């Protein structure tokens, strides 16, 4: 494995009396996608803000590319790219003007800048609309410009803070694909999310963060092995039926640890997926709910989180 591009040791960040990050340690190796997975308020954005030199740390140390984040912020800033959680763009400038402005802040100019702007526009699929003001864009398009700004100077390490929050499934798909593509081209990515599926799809390694603490760290396989034998049973419920009624009943079935509804699927966590299939179908029949598909999944990160905290990620 390659040398770490980022090393964090006992990082602490307090806001007044409140400790948002409680001494976390992890590193990211050159070329990997590392996810910080955790619910809202876990301290993901705070961690990114400190690592991107925006906030001062209360304690601990961090190096990026061998440079101390706190002692050499200007050097570090040139190495990293940032896609902030909240859109940070000038609405009254066009996408091209935004890219141009931010590119110049990253010391790009002249031909290099022009080339990079065009490349990035191509990458985020906004070449056609590049000369429209950002305020005329849809939420998904704005997100893409927001990402584009972070890519302009070809950072070695890209911080992406929940880049898919609040957008349509299609844009989300496009963003996840582009993260993978960027990584394939050699970019190291620190990705934060509270969506288990995203961390699962993207990451080489995952850090699970909760209440400012890193409660688990490792490859997906390593993490899942902590869970023990819990499996996931996924039920696809017919569009016309209400999955919530079935989910509520399922929670009373012995062996079912958890039953969550997302759109028209019910995700059930249980030590024995096979064993609860027949009671599930029975219940569905009683309630007159049609099940279109049943799928048993290996232990996943959601299960890991549940195992470690006793809570669901997205509560």
């Amino acid at each position, binding site marked *: 494995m390659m040398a770490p591009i980022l090393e964090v040791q006992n990082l602490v960040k307090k806001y007044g009396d409140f400790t948002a990050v409680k001494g976390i340690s992890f590193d990211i190796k050159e070329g990997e996608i590392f996810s910080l997975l955790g619910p809202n308020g876990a301290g993901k954005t705070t961690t990114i803000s400190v690592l991107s030199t925006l906030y001062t740390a209360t304690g601990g140390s961090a190096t990026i590319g061998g440079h101390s984040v706190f002692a050499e912020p200007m050097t570090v800033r040139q190495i990293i790219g*940032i896609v902030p959680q909240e859109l940070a763009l000038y609405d009254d400038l066009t996408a091209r003007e935004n890219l141009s402005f931010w590119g110049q802040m990253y010391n790009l100019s002249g031909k290099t800048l022009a080339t990079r702007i065009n490349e990035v526009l191509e990458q985020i699929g906004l070449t056609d609309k590049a000369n429209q003001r950002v305020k005329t864009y849809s939420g998904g398009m704005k997100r893409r410009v927001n990402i584009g700004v972070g890519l302009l100077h070809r950072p070695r390490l890209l911080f992406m803070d929940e880049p898919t929050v609040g957008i349509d499934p299609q844009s989300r798909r496009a963003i996840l694909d582009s993260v993978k593509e960027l990584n394939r081209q050699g970019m190291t990515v620190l990705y934060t999310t509270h969506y288990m599926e995203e961390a699962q799809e993207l990451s080489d390694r995952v850090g699970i963060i909760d209440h400012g603490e890193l409660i688990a760290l490792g490859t997906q396989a390593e993490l899942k092995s902590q869970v023990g034998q819990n499996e996931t049973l996924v039920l696809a419920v017919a569009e016309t039926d209400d999955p919530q009624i079935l989910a509520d009943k399922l929670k009373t079935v012995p062996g079912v640890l958890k039953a969550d509804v997302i759109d028209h699927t019910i995700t059930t966590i249980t030590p024995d997926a096979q064993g609860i299939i027949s009671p599930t179908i029975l219940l569905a029949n009683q309630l007159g709910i049609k099940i279109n598909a049943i799928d048993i999944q290996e232990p996943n990160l959601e299960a890991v989180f549940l195992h470690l905290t006793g809570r669901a990620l997205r509560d």
Partner: protein
Amino acid sequence: MKKAFLIGWKDVKLAFRDRAALLLMLAAPFLLTLGLGLVTGRFSGSSNTGISDIPFVIVNQDEGQLGTELVKVFESEDMADLLEPSSASDPVAARQAVDEDKLAAVIVIPAGFSESFFSSQDSIEAPAIELYSNPARPTSVGVITTILESFLARAEMIRAGSEVTLTQLLSTGRLQPQEVAAAAERMAEQQSEAGASNSSLTLKNVTESGAEVDFDVLAYMAPGMALMFLMFTTTNGGRSLLAEQRLGTLPRLLTTPVNTTQVLGGKVLGIFLTGAAQMLILIVASTLFFQLNWGDPLAVLLLVLAAVVGAVGWGMIITALARTPGQVSAVGSALMLGFGILGGSFINLDNMPNWFRVIAKITPNAWGLDGFNTLALGGGLANILTPILALLIMGVALFAISVFIINRRGFGQR
């Protein structure tokens, strides 16, 4: 430095793309000035003629002393800025030029005018001076008429008895009956003045009449309005600093290889450039549309820059003390109006008590107005050094305090 400029330039762009801001930066002061102009009758005539270098032709067919004297008056040094007379011999061609709007008027001094003027007691038979005027240029014609009338009044004095010339003007239809009273009054004034001193007519005599008073009002109101709404621009610019904090663009800037001095410097530069652009646009617009004469351009420019520095200082101090963009807007609007009133944008400070004028000195408006008025009245750079210096000191001091406060509160840092 380059990055600071880029940040500032970006803000200028944003300011000029913000319709709501443009309304207050440019439209409001311009329309208020225009409104005041209408109220004071500044635009009662056509506004497409300036009152300088009025082109007209004198056809002097008189061989006598009076005709020569009149030509001398029109061609005198005192009138050089105001008038652009040329002489011709063909009245028909000259009248044609008036009809074609090439000239404001033609003055024909008929043959034998001097002779008959001094000899004839019979007003009906005396040949009259003809003023063939261009109705499209009422202001210019008014000026020429006034000069002509005052000359004739003086001539009348010599002959004693002013009713003759008035009748002459009337009988030729050059003077409308309703104007007679006013003309007579002015003649009387001119006569008494001419009696007191023998000097030839001066520009001052002319410009003391009618239109010039309104001109002064506008020359006073236009800078007043511009300075008032300059305060909007600078406080709105300061607001953008807090707005960018909220919007996330300021935090994002502080994760790029840019230091806080560059960011803050860029923001201030942006406000400064926006304010300067606003003032210069308003000045150029009022010069073009209202024929306002602001005075020596270089001095005006330097005064503008100094006034913007002073106003930026106030914008920054509000920003430094406020917690939210909304607070800056609210305090900014109050300050804009308060300074407008206190600084003399609405009332002439000369009429106010002493203590009021002393307090007014905290506003950039008062110093700016002082300077602009001096320049409009023909003063030069040397005459406005005090307001310029005061504005610069005000701006730099307020800015220094603001930076101190902003740094103490932690700029973008947590």
